[in-house]
């Protein structure tokens, strides 16, 4: 062990988030006993300005050369503390975090055991940090071009925003037209503006913009590279391939609707005149709301939450359907004046701007609202031969507790949003993750909702969860702000963390050449040695674990550093058994 290290250890209370379950003072007292530790402090919020200044001051005054912070997950605040010690004049890589919040205080129930675990994790970090090496950040040029995948409202908005700032954009759309799902709808809620008007203006600008290359009937086949320097292989209309280069990627692939035929109780696909919300949009766009045999419906029943908030299908709320159902009430009534509309709902979610007013206005009109329990949805069947209506909807009305039969000539199923069937393929293509429902995962759900775990790849709109148009547009614009910030810097800083081969130890067996998923390892036939092209290496460490000569070093994840952690967690435990 490098005995010359002077380590400072800081234990965060995180208000009571950590302190409630972990005795932070005890962790700090314990850390003081560790070799190399010269100062140890527990403080209420290490990430706050006073907390960070405490570290900066200690680094300067006590000449610390290593810093450990035991606090939240490094995925949360590692960058914060790295820049703090850099401010104090220390290399940012002379830092290690012990995760005693997400993986300790928040998940354990015994204060004694949680405190013991926090000590073990802190001990591991103290041992590891003494083997850290300094690295200088590397800069690479930033290509100002952006690839936008998906030409819906999100893609159109993002493309225009960047192009208006004079940045080149490639807009790739799978379909033969722009507009995405918004192009399928008639009016928007709650203000009943025409969706077509929203789109036409955007599409005209996008197609005429000198900075935007629109590629219809096109798909992205493969993507390589890294932030600032991506390359993509496209299959364009007619099957031709095309290569493009860009610095950023925005994924705006949107959603697809729930397949209503999966929920047999509603009779979609079996009973005539049971339609989905998108089928109805088609009717509304042509201005003719009618049954299959061309008659105007006397009774229309709208069923909310089809495929949403369901144990059987999608458990989440699709957010836009409630207001859309109210919109249908208004639109159907304008198309068919004397129609009787019944709206079967589970809860009326009117959360957005203008939505509650819209609900009140709609409720005052002659629609009947009936509530059903989401675990007990209504059933649609064909009406009797003598009935003067085609369909019968049976519902256990929740508020009255009565079983009600509602007549209908037309049943509209409010189908929810779900992740697209090709979302796994897209995730793979741009190297981002999906959640259990198939939605793309954001870097942080609250603080970083449009970036992903892959630098330079952003997500906007309903590809990450159900969203309405205003939210989608806001997200699309947010991605462009993030990208322009990088473009303004002219270059980007990449983590100097990659693998490197010690040519003296390499036997030239070439085993690593085959293993590298990024083809970052080259073999020099003259020297008979392999070497790693650092900018192409993404530091997974696959080759490091495989090298039979132990010739490959994973920067910042060396064997020695990991051994120290193993010893740290175990030695602590065995000395206190």
């Amino acid at each position, binding site marked *: 062990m490098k005995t010359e290290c002077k380590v400072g250890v800081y234990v965060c209370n995180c208000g009571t988030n950590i302190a409630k379950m972990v005795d932070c003072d005890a962790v700090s007292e314990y850390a003081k006993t560790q070799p190399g530790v010269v100062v140890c402090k527990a403080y209420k919020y290490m990430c706050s300005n006073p907390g960070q200044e405490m570290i900066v001051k200690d680094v300067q005054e006590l000449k610390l050369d290593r810093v450990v912070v035991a606090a939240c997950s490094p995925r949360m605040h590692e960058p914060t503390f790295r820049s703090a010690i850099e401010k104090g004049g220390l290399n940012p890589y002379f830092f290690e975090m012990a995760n005693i919040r997400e993986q300790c205080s928040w998940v354990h129930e*015994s204060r004694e055991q949680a405190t013991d675990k926090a000590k073990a994790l802190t001990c591991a970090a103290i041992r590891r940090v003494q083997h850290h090496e300094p690295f200088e950040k590397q800069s690479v040029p930033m290509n100002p071009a952006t690839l936008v995948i998906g030409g819906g409202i999100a893609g159109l908005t993002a493309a225009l925003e960047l192009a208006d700032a004079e940045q080149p954009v490639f807009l790739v759309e799978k379909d033969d037209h722009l507009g995405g799902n918004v192009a399928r709808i008639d009016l928007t809620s709650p203000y009943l503006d025409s969706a077509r008007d929203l789109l036409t203006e955007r599409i005209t600008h996008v197609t005429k913009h000198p900075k935007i290359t629109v590629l219809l009937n096109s798909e992205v086949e493969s993507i390589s590279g890294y932030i600032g320097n991506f390359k993509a292989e496209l299959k364009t209309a007619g099957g031709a391939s095309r290569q493009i280069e860009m610095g950023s990627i925005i994924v705006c692939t949107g959603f697809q609707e729930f397949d209503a035929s999966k929920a047999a109780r509603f009779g979609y696909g079996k009973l005539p005149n049971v339609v989905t919300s998108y089928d109805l949009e088609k009717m509304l766009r042509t201005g003719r709301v009618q049954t299959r045999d061309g008659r105007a419906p006397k009774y229309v029943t709208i069923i909310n939450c089809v495929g949403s908030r369901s144990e059987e299908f999608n458990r989440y709320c699709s957010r836009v359907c409630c207001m859309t159902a109210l919109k249908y009430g208004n639109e159907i009534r304008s198309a068919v004046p004397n129609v009787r509309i019944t709206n079967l709902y589970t809860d009326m979610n009117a959360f957005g701007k203008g939505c509650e007013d819209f609900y009140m206005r709609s409720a005052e009109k002659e629609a009947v609202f009936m509530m059903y329990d989401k675990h007990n949805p209504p059933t649609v069947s064909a009406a009797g031969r003598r009935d003067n209506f085609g369909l019968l909807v049976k519902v256990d009305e929740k508020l009255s507790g009565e079983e009600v039969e509602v007549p209908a000539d037309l049943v509209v199923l409010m189908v929810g949003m779900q992740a697209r069937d090709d979302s*796994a393929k897209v995730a793979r293509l741009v190297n981002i993750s999906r959640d259990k429902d198939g939605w793309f995962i954001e870097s942080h759900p609250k603080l970083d909702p449009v970036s992903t*775990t892959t630098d330079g790849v952003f997500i906007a709109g309903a590809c990450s969860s159900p969203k309405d148009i205003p939210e989608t547009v806001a997200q699309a614009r947010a991605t462009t702000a993030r990208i322009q910030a990088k473009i303004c810097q002219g270059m980007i800083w990449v983590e100097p963390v990659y693998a490197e081969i010690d040519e003296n130890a390499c036997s030239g067996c070439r085993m690593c050449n085959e293993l590298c998923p990024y083809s970052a390892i080259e073999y020099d036939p003259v020297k008979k040695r392999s070497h790693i092209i650092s900018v192409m290496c993404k530091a*997974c460490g696959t080759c490091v674990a495989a090298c039979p000569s132990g010739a490959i070093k*994973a920067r910042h994840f060396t064997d020695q550093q990991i051994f120290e952690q193993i010893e740290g967690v175990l030695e602590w435990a065995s000395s206190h058994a």
Partner: protein
Amino acid sequence: MGFEPRIVGFLCNWCSYTGADLAGTSRIKYQPNVSVIRVMCSARIDPTFILKALSMGADGVIICGCHPGDCHYVEGNYKTMRRFPLLKKMLKDFGVEEDRVRLEWVSASEGQRFSEVINDMIDKVRALGPSKIRVSLDADKVER
């Protein structure tokens, strides 16, 4: 106090470590016997790490990575998947019980699953009792 297992967990940064953090933000409770070491990819886990942990007296080692097909580094977890049976075979020859070393897939959204996997691992290792290496290490310490 009865036997409390000491288990080392190696988690990949992108899926499993994030999933473990999600268990935390969701306040899902699980037993505290696994101490986690973060690596970028499960394929970084050199078999010597596991041997090192066992030789230091760990009662068990658990490796968690992204589900097959979901690796942040394209296919690192497939390499882990292929290496792992070889290691298990060797450990068996050394007399290390089957349940002490385990490979599991936990995605970034599976906080609940992470807690279940960890609890199950701890319960199984607790049922096995302390590892033979730990017993002999502890005996050495007493002698000294």
